């Protein structure tokens, strides 16, 4: 099989992404995820089936068509679903993008960690690492899985010396306890590769999708975080980490 004809299971494409990584970006949302986060705003990307199979060539063509918009710091971000489920194909894609001088970025929950992932990270200019909770019990409640692997994956990225942004979704009653925020920030305080920390306040835009998919949404009655709680989270993070951004 020619490398360019390798396919990626794509849920959707956003050609004007300004939320997932620096600058203007082509964001490719892949299909499939092993976590079951209660607040997931893209539940339609969870299933490992579905989506559209797109070739690496077609995706590179997409990226080249908008290269003029990338400016100094834009590029391509792979998000999901969970992008690293597709690590072999993404390695081919990222190599091809690098051959065209395009910046690569991966938005991940860190759940996958193996040799193939290490190879992919080597071709990834920036990792957006979403560590959803520092307390393992709370992490399981929030995502259905343990945080052991994500933390290990983050530590691996740190060991490579290559840049990483940390992300944290702030959900009232689920992930906004000050002591845990403090512990989360402390855990990463010694990391040298973290260039930026993003707090993503929970929003309800994905709520309707759950009903459409016939899935039970557990956050009914949970409101978006108050301004005060957003500011508090930022303040706590900023005690230990630089460049904390509230989105």
């Amino acid at each position, binding site marked *: 099989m020619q490398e360019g004809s390798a396919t990626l299971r794509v849920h*959707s494409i956003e050609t004007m*992404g*300004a*939320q997932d990584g620096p600058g203007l970006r082509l964001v490719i949302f892949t299909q499939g995820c092993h976590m079951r986060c209660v607040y997931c705003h893209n539940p339609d990307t969870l299933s490992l089936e579905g989506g559209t199979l797109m070739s690496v060539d077609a995706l590179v063509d997409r990226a080249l068509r908008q290269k003029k*918009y*990338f400016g100094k710091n834009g590029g391509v971000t792979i998000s999901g679903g969970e992008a690293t489920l597709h690590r072999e194909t993404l390695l081919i894609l990222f190599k091809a993008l690098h051959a065209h001088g395009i910046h690569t970025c991966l938005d991940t929950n860190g759940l996958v960690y193996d040799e193939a992932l290490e190879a992919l990270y080597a071709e990834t200019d920036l990792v957006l690492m979403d560590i959803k909770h520092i307390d393992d019990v709370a992490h399981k409640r929030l995502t259905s899985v343990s945080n052991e692997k994500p933390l290990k994956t983050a530590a691996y990225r740190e060991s490579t010396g290559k840049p990483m942004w940390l992300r944290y979704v702030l959900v009232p009653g689920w992930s906004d306890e000050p002591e845990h925020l403090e512990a989360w920030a402390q855990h990463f305080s010694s990391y040298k590769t973290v260039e930026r920390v993003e707090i993503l306040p929970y929003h309800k835009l994905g709520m309707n999708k759950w009903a459409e998919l016939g899935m039970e949404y557990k956050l009914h009655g949970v409101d978006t975080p108050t301004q005060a709680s957003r500011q508090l989270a930022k303040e706590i993070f900023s005690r230990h980490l630089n460049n904390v951004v509230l989105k």
Partner: protein
Amino acid sequence: MYINPEETPLVAQKANCFTPGNWSVAVDVYDFVSKNITPYTGDASFLAGASAKTTHLWNLCREALKEERARNGCRNIDPDTISSITSHKPGYIDKDAEVIVGLQTDEVLKRAIKPFGGVKVVENAVKERGMTLNPKVIEIFKYAKNHNDAVFSAYDAEVRNYRSKHIITGLPDNYARGRIIGDYRRLALYGTAKLIDAKKADLAKLSGEMNDHTVRLREEIGAQLIALKDIGTMAATYGFDATVPAKNAVEATQWVYLAYLAAIKEQDGAAMSLGNVSSFLDIYIEQDMKAGVINEEQAQEIIDHFVMKLRMVRHLRPGAYDEIFGGDPTWVTESIGGQFHDGRTKVTKTSFRFLNTLYTLGASPEPNLTVLWSEQLPEGFKKFCAQVSLDTSSLQYENDDLMRETRLSDDYGISCCVSHQAIGKAIQHFGARVNMPKTMLLAINGGREEDHASEVIKGVAALPEGVLDFDTVYASFKQCMVELARVYAKSMYMIHFMHDKYYYEKAQMAFVDTDPRIDVAYGAAGISIIADSLSAIKYAKVTAIRNEQGLAVDFKTEGDYPKFGNDDDRVDALAQEVASFFAAELRKHTPYKNAKPTLSLLTITSNVMYGKNTGSTPDGRKGGEPFAPGANPMHGRDTCGAIASLNSVAKLDYRQAEDGISNTFSIVPKALGANREEQINNLVNLLGGYFSSRAHHLNVNVLDRETLQKAFEHPEQYPQLTIRVSGYAVNFTRLSRAHQQEVITRTFHDAM
């Protein structure tokens, strides 16, 4: 135009220490600007805020605007005085506080009557406002012919039929054609006396054997000489001697405004644009600042007071006009920025000062501030433009690199929304636009109109039953476009022939070279519907659902097909092909005055009205639903995000549509980035990417849909909320409810 160099140096003021050049011996403003401009490559930090006088005056204007809104959009009319350069006494907002003076009538926001376009239209417009046109005016036009009557005396049955069936729409046959930009800078640089000398010299050369062309030019110059004399008279009523050049920044600005004021007292074209005056005025401001005569606050004050006047420009319009041009626009388009051919930037501090009026006076649709975008623009200016867009949604952008390369001039302005004009060297004859989707329906219905079954185009074969065949439909559509181009060209010839005869723009043309180049600006609406319809027929299965008369009332589409706005060449190529085909057809017909045919892909706000008058189309759009504005993809069909959508529009070839390709972009602030700095940088990159893809035009709106919803419900709380629509800006609250709804439901790029 040459002025005898031996007799008198053109600018005699000793105080002025401008670098001389060809401009000193001939009418050549470009040479003056090129030799004396001080390009500015810094950021916006030098700008000053509003002075006390400015705030005081703007408060008075806001009161007047409030009264205008309370009186259903028209504060007052003078129904007795036929407007001319000298018709009205001087008008002031508050004379003592005004640094720049002059109003169209004796009172702010009082509209004047201009019956030479069509006296019936004026009569109705006055009547609609509960007033009565002075019977003397009607009496006068029993003896004098007006443009409207003249055009209709020439129209043939074909033109009337295409017109009444809304296939050719918005023709300037009952109002002024507008669009012509005078080089209003000339009054400041030369004064009327020198300009009269120059025109007289032109006249003297037009002798010998006579032909239509020469006689017409002689008559035109005669009219221009009267206008120049009248402008001197009008200036004198305000206490100025505009027979001589302006001596300083205040005078230069005042003179430029008086020249423009003459134009808008005489004419009420839909678009009465200003040109590119900011960097010209900067030369005088720089001079005064160097001499220590004014400081930054005073410089801003001069520009603020000028711009305030431009915001108060009004024309009397009938209600029906609002259906086509929502929001009472005047298109006082001022083009800012761009580069010289020699690589220097035309950005000056006064470029910034013009944009700064959106802060000192708040957001506003007029003047229609248009940034000429070049990759080479100074970074500080790019960022300031992006910031102003984020804060006010009041700017549009046009591709300077593309226009300089294609249209050759580096001293040009934008007329109306997207129309290029080399200032003082070329003009355009406005041609409104045709309804392309309706033309496609003619093709599908054997040349019959989809609503009333009456035959519009003869000899169009009925399509066979069953699934529409792409080649058959396309061939039939091309046949209809050929006919449409023929009838459209014919109507334009008659309109401009008559406009010259009965409503000649003597004030504007007094500031344009004698016998200038002319573009005849044709237009086409609904290109994205055409592309999607052809794509549906080609890539999916489309069957026409016909009524008992055999007319297609709806379409059944099976299967998916590529849609315009997703950067998909299969469909984007169809849009390009149709635009090129129609442009080529138009070029086959010889226009009045041997003008050069150009085409725009534009709708103004009439995308709503076009939709109302057009039945269901093969792309799945239901009868009555609005078109997309300009060359925009249809609402909700661009599913890959904003850049794919921009790329589709960028593929439309400007060389095939030299009158401009309009695209309106609306985005929520957060979708541009997490914070202000990111949003500014990303918008700069977005504009850079779009224009380096050879796109022509972009309106930028940065606002939340919720804001529009609130303004829809509580208009009184949002008097200055400005949004960009197709090629111009409007006060959102001055749009009709239907237009407001259309804007709210329009595609917003809100990727999160």
